[in-house]
């Protein structure tokens, strides 16, 4: 009973039901190999959803994650073209993503500009910067070195490294959110910003930290994305920011801040990822896909929000309880 009450459990059931539904039309979808593929494909969404979750927890939103990803990915590709070894590229793009996130964070923290405005602006600036870097040119598979392309697809224990990186990130973020003072501060800041100040938690600094984390994850994902799809151009992951927000919302992260879990974010992303991967496979016309994922988002929001609604204070005691 109390298990059913948890949003995460409901979501897990929904995912299982979805898989069962797909399997009934297309059994091959649920083979372990294919599920591993879906997991790998969904890794970028999960990675970004982790960062977005921390940002949303603090009552902010980051619309610039996809642009950040694209810019970092392009820089990774350019560095690779210059012969920089991967061991240097990887920390460099993560740092760069974090720095771009820090720009958002600083504008929110120090100038108090609402995050939606800040990231709406930096979103176009970051993406435009890619154009300025390359004059719009694409970087194609043959221009990327083999080691650069190989890392995310190399397999370990049956799963590509890309998926392993995602899993490690989920565990690390999960641990940080549950066990680091900063992680707990995310909830405090989002749940009651006024009170957070009284508890000695700086609202701005916590939001800044969330933006930096989201940025670092976007930077990492930028490299993974470019290496996986072996092409870099201005429009990489265009519009992906809304998918990321949708994943968080489906995962039960309250858009008003202060409530939500890492497990929820991961499952929200998986839910979207499975739908996106399954629709082409089960032979649903491509023209139906958009409407179907839109409906899925709406249903998820309705279920999440209505379930969270406070059940009232219940002043009246039931007679037997009082006796």
């Amino acid at each position, binding site marked *: 009973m109390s298990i059913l009450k948890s949003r995460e459990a409901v979501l897990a059931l929904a995912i299982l039901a979805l898989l069962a539904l797909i399997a009934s039309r297309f059994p091959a979808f649920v083979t372990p190999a294919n599920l591993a593929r879906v997991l790998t494909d969904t890794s970028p969404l999960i990675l970004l959803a982790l960062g977005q979750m921390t940002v949303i927890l603090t009552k902010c939103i980051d619309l610039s994650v996809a642009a950040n990803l694209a810019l970092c990915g392009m820089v990774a590709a350019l560095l690779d073209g210059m012969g920089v070894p991967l061991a240097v590229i990887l920390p460099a793009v993560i740092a760069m993503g974090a720095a771009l996130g820090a720009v958002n964070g600083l504008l929110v923290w120090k100038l108090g500009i609402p995050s939606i405005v800040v990231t709406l602006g930096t979103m176009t600036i970051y993406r435009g910067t890619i154009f300025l870097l390359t004059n719009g040119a694409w970087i194609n598979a043959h221009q990327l070195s083999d080691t650069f392309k190989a890392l995310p697809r190399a397999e370990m224990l049956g799963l590509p490294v890309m998926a392993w990186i995602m899993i490690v990130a989920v565990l690390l973020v999960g*641990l940080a959110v549950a*066990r*680091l*003072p900063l992680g*707990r*501060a995310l*909830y*405090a800041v989002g*749940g*009651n910003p*006024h*009170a*957070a*100040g*009284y*508890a*000695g*938690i*700086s609202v701005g600094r916590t939001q800044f930290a969330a933006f930096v984390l989201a940025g670092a994850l976007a930077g990492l994902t930028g490299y993974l994305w470019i290496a996986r799809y072996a092409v870099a151009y201005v429009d990489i992951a265009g519009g992906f920011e809304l998918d990321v927000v949708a994943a968080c919302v489906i995962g039960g992260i309250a858009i008003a801040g*202060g*409530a939500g879990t890492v497990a929820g974010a991961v499952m929200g992303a998986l839910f979207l990822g499975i739908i996106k991967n399954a629709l082409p496979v089960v032979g649903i016309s491509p023209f139906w896909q958009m409407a179907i994922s839109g409906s899925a988002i709406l249903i998820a929001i309705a279920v999440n929000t209505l379930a969270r609604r406070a*059940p*009232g*204070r*219940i*002043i*009246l*005691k039931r007679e037997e309880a*009082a006796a």
Partner: protein
Amino acid sequence: MQPDPVLSLRGIVKTFPGVRALDGVRLDLFPGQVTALIGENGAGKSTIVKVLTGIYQPDGGQILLDGQPVTFPDAQSAHCAGVTAIHQETVLFDELTVAENIFIGHAPRTRWGLIDRRAMRARAEKILRGIGADIPAGAKLRDLGIASRHLVAIARALSVDARVVIMDEPTAALSHKEIAELYELVETLKRQGKAILFISHKFDEIFRIADRWTVFRDGTFVGEGEMAGTEEAELVRLMVGRSVDQIYPKRPAQIGDPVLTVAGYSHPTEFEDITFTLHAGEILGFYGLVGAGRSEVMQALFGITRPSKGACRIDGQVRVLRSTAQAVDAGIVYVPEDRGAQGAVKGLPIFQNVTLPSLARTGRAGFLRLAEEFKLARDYTQRLDLRAASLDQDIALLSGGNQQKVVIAKWLATRPRVIILDEPTKGIDIGSKAAVHDFMSELAGQGLAVIMVSSEIPEVLGMSDRVIVMREGRIAGEFAGDRMTPENLVRAAVGIDRKEAA
């Protein structure tokens, strides 16, 4: 003989844009003693608390701890210095557990820098047990009731090894059972040699637990002394700058015909079978412990929540109230308990706050007429003796008491038949309180039917013609005339009769 103060403030100055909240005040706190800080609304009491706990930085002056000057650049450092506070606002977080709420900001850590959840939980349980609270440390705060939350806030203040404990209006939201427990806690702390700063507007409790007093007025220090041998009237005079003679100026009113008749109002979870009649010119008091469901009933009458059963008649006509707009049309208005969230529309100027429910009257064909709005706002705010720089000033810039006046003005301007005042004087200083009471009497005298929800017995007894007591969502008794005694009210409110019968 007086020990040396643990903590002394000298010449503290704090200014906000446009307001000098503290102007060179001093304050001394002594070990094992309770110092009461007294002052009108906006005198600067909460501001000094925030200066002491590192939330605000003073613009001038000195904080001396054991005679040594210290600074508290943030809440953490005040904590470390052993200064802890139960703030006027709740400092709790719904999505965190009880233990986390108690320790947020100073949680015990493991070697790896992670939060040591086991240690945190054990310590939280110990503190909770110490204050007699039976609350599981692992529960999420959002699952707790109001009283438990308050205990968590207290536990939080005790979670550091404090030398100075500050309590800013800790009893404002408590009923007298919890208040009694709080007094015991204060005694324990005193015995442990802690210095306590106690802020309250209620003189009975100040006289009961404080050893010393300090009075602020308009951000300045006006005096201090020993509680023993001090008269209430003297404190009031220091505080207000004049004497307040009559606190409950209830004038006998002409009670007229029934205006509002409520029959069998019920709600699935909040209240049941609420039945009463209200007459023109009458002040009907609603007493009960906090959480008895009085506000819930009033909000149902005002169309906020929908009753599942029951009927409501106004002037004999059955009215179905599905929205606040319908309630206002029917002539019922409600001055809410939660001024900040439900009363004032902060961000809008005073005059717009006043005319909000009367726009149909001040405007024409849906278009605004500013001149009419200013006229209406001026009429009613001046009758309530509002203190404001101008009518197009943002209401958020007013002190709490003055905001309350604007909210009352807003409703009077609709010329209602019934006005419901929910805790109209909660957190209001003694001078403003008298003004509100005075005004309530005047309204009743003019034939308005008034419902006053209050948790303060003297106020209920002093102002009401009749009192209804609620307990756990039901009417527990109705008292008028000679039967309106403190004993009867309290018995009904806590259900002593039932217990004795069982």
